[in-house]
């Protein structure tokens, strides 16, 4: 009976092969955009693309890719010269990776009247320029972001908890202002099911702190935020690594202690914002939160809604740069334009969306990137929790690390951090061994690039 199955199948596939050849057809003016999942991608696909087509007849196709595949897919297609996408999105740390494939926007900015000064200076430096393409504008910011600390205000203010904390640590229970204090708070709130919290018996275990700890991007992002808070930059102006200093070993050991003792095991499966659902459900006392996660935390169906307080990341005491609060990198991303025949049309679309519809974009993407977003009354009142959240976010943005956008940043800093913290976390290497390895690789990469 197999023959009867195979026969139609062979016809099917023959037809499929023919249609495969058929799809290689002529280019039309369709702008294609590779997107990272998130509210801003949904806004592009569901709202801005259809409206732009209505207004101009030009089609915009947004393709949302899995976060862990986005960069590789764009790299593959760009190196292969397939012109698959006209627009790409990425975190500025990796802009240099695309240096050979994206166009200089300076002339288009002038020609079409795009106002660069609408963005805060930090955002301009981070999300528009890159040392890999000096003097040029290679991207437009869409989602600049940096993390903050969130905690359960209702528990922090509960008299039983305040008394117990003071009895144990000899000071008042309050939002942690240093990482050492964060550790105490995390330890204090880590409890098993059956113990009491704020006068109630816990049905399930409670965790003191968490951030994503998944292999690769998750643990890297969580750790690098603390790493930059120690005041290191990765390397100095002579391209000499500074990550081999003792303070880096200290922060690594601190991070591992925090992650292994007070965070849920499940965090090892989280890549980015997934764990905030556990915060939402009342299973965590504090968490590191990227602003894209605020919607989850304040989900009205959850326990944390209305009970969440926001504060900048705590200070790393005796940090090398004299920061007065935690110093995460300025993350999130920007859009760049690949060198395709559609590049000018693509720019016109971006200008229309980001500048002509700036408040609408802020509203729908739930991201604050332009000065006008922070000033817009409409946006500030969009959500009830913005009154607490937004001032903290503005304060976070006062102290952020702007990554050096050289092509090697991803290899030496991001992947270097991945290897380093994975080694220390898993106990495969001591912090000192892992640092040495990291610094050696960094020097090697800079030598190969001719910087040193």
């Amino acid at each position, binding site marked *: 009976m197999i023959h009867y199955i195979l026969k139609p199948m062979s016809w099917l596939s023959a037809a499929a092969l023919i249609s495969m050849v058929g799809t290689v057809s002529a280019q039309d003016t369709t702008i294609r955009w590779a997107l990272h999942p998130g509210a801003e991608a949904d806004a592009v696909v569901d709202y801005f693309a259809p409206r732009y087509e209505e207004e101009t007849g030009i089609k915009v196709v947004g393709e949302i890719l899995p976060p862990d595949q986005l960069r590789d897919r764009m790299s593959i297609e760009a190196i292969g010269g397939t012109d698959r996408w006209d627009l790409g999105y990425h975190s500025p740390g990796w802009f240099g990776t695309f240096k*050979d494939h994206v166009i200089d926007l300076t002339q288009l900015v002038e020609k079409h009247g795009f106002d660069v000064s609408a963005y805060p200076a930090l955002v301009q430096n981070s999300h528009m320029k890159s040392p890999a393409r000096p003097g040029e504008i290679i991207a437009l910011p869409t989602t600049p972001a940096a993390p903050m600390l969130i905690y359960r205000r209702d528990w922090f203010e509960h008299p039983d908890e305040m008394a117990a904390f003071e009895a144990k640590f000899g000071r008042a229970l309050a939002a942690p202002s240093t990482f050492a204090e964060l550790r105490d708070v995390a330890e204090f709130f880590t409890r098993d099911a059956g113990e009491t919290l704020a006068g109630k018996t816990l049905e399930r275990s409670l965790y003191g702190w968490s951030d994503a700890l*998944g*292999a*690769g991007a998750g643990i890297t992002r969580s750790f690098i935020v603390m790493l930059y808070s120690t005041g290191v930059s990765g390397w100095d102006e002579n391209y000499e690594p500074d990550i081999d200093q003792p303070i880096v070993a200290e922060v690594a050991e601190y991070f591992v202690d925090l992650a292994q003792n007070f965070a849920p*095991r499940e965090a090892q499966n989280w890549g980015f914002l997934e764990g905030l659902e556990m915060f939402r459900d009342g299973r965590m006392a504090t968490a590191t939160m990227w602003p894209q996660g605020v919607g989850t935390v304040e989900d009205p169906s959850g326990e944390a809604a209305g009970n969440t307080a926001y504060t900048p990341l705590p200070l790393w005491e005796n940090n090398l740069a004299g920061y007065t609060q935690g110093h995460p990198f300025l993350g999130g991303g920007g859009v760049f334009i690949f060198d395709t025949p559609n590049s000018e049309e693509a720019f016109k679309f971006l200008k229309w969306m980001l500048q002509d519809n700036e408040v609408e974009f802020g509203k729908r993407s739930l991201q604050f990137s332009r000065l006008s977003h922070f000033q817009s009354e409409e946006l500030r009142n969009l959500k009830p929790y913005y009154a607490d959240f937004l001032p903290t976010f503005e304060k976070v943005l006062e102290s952020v690390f702007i990554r050096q956008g050289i092509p090697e940043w991803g290899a030496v800093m991001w992947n270097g951090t991945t290897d380093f913290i994975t080694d220390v976390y898993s*106990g*495969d290497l001591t912090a000192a061994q892992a640092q040495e390895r990291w610094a050696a690789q960094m020097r090697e990469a800079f030598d190969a690039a001719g910087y040193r």
Partner: protein
Amino acid sequence: MLVIVGVPLALGFRYSMHRVFLYDFNNQIFKGLDNYAYALSDPLFIKALNTTIIFTLGCVATGILFGLLVAFLLNSRKVRWRPFWVSLFLIPFVMTPVVGGIAWRFFMWQQEFGVINAIGGIFGADARYWLLDRETALFASIVSNSWHLTPLSILVFYAALSTIPDELYDASHIDGAGPFQTLWYVVLPLLRPHVLFVSVILLTSAFREFDMIWALTGGGPGRSTTVLSILAYNRGIANQDMGMANTIAFTMFAIMAVVAWIYITIYRRMLEKST
């Protein structure tokens, strides 16, 4: 065929001797054997190699052991519905390994409502985080992958056993041997070539396994299940370091070449003995 296999092999060997980063693809620097020297002195490579060896041997041993047992049971006299058993025993083998990994990860090993902890709970065992615990993740991966590979070994052993004439069993039965003595002293020696064949198939397959582990743990927690193929993937794609990735892959190839040579030597010797 030579082109489709030979060209990538040659290219891969070339890349393994160069410094090649995807972000700087046009700037390739010749390194000779430096990449290999670096890999062999890199504790992470050594750790991944160890993990790979444990994983591979664990899968081969489990696969052979359970394959023999089940095939022996299946071949026992008076077993009914043989085609029924065989067709269902086949399922783990044909099931897409990625999906197998997903099924094990989310419904078997899962700490709160997975089958393993639920069964363990009946016997009073504590619920464990099987895949999220560095102590147990590799063990759990070996179990899951053995589940996928064992049908092959069952089928081969079963096919071989069914060629053994019944008189042989009768003879050993008359000699007073129990079923396990029969298995050990009568059947196993006859199956030696098949054990060799199956162990090689399982070995090559487990040594390069990627899909199942990737879906189960992604190589974590920490690096506890990072086998060489996952390390090569991480270096090449995540770190964009194609030179080192190819070096790791080629080292795998070299190890397999040695294994192949050993296998062929043993096989030849066995043939010589039997003739």
